[in-house]
């Protein structure tokens, strides 16, 4: 799994690629936690190039989202497709996160 971050005017966009599994998911949490420590509170996660996510990945997404909610931050998800979208649907995760078809739509929603 690889992550690329890009600072936009109102949020940091984190693009994840590859596989988010039981081994790699903690890296995602570490990355978001580090950005929060630096003062960021608004995130867009870009799933365009993520091929695979298991329950360990969902656990990491949920943990960071809970933390951000407590600190009045926000996190939006963009561009879920294929198997990753299916995993969100069957776990009911699609209904608890703010989901968008594009990164730009997510940035608009953050405002």
């Amino acid at each position: 799994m690889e992550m690329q971050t890009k600072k936009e005017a109102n949020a940091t966009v984190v693009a994840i690629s590859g596989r988010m599994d039981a081994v790699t998911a903690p890296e995602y949490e570490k990355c978001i936690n580090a950005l929060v420590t630096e003062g960021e509170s608004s995130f867009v996660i870009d799933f365009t190039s993520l091929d695979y996510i298991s329950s360990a990945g969902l656990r990491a997404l949920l943990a960071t989202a809970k933390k951000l909610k407590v600190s009045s931050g926000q996190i939006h998800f963009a561009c879920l497709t294929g198997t990753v979208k299916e995993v969100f649907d069957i776990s009911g995760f699609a209904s608890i996160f703010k989901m968008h078809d594009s990164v730009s739509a997510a940035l608009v929603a953050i405002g």
Partner: protein
Amino acid sequence: MHRDTLSCIASVEKLEEVISFIEDCADHSKLDMKRKMGLLIAAEEAFVNVCSYAYPDGLGEVLVSCAFSNTEFEVEVADFGREFDVLSIPEPDTESDIMDRQIGGLGVHFIRKLSDEASYRREHGQNILKMKINLAFNSDII
């Protein structure tokens, strides 16, 4: 049915090796990309469960085997731990909101949902979980 088996220690450090093994086998079958990804996720959940719970007193062995024919592809994950049917775990919470949402049971949910048939048997002192994909349902078949 052609069958290949990988034996390794029950440790998440071996996850990549296990997934690559299954992916190699799948690439020799008619499994399409989307269903292959789903099956790999189901297999990860089964393997990680074994790593987490099968050997509370230390390390043990896991056997992962793949077999396929023209009509089906199956993965079996076997451990030598105490008798335990992972499919007996109840369905998870998939409805509560973000702050109340629990992740427990989601792995087993994926095993059930991302395979066409999941079954458990106890045989020769092993817990064996079989996940089967029916290749007749392949999305690339018109």
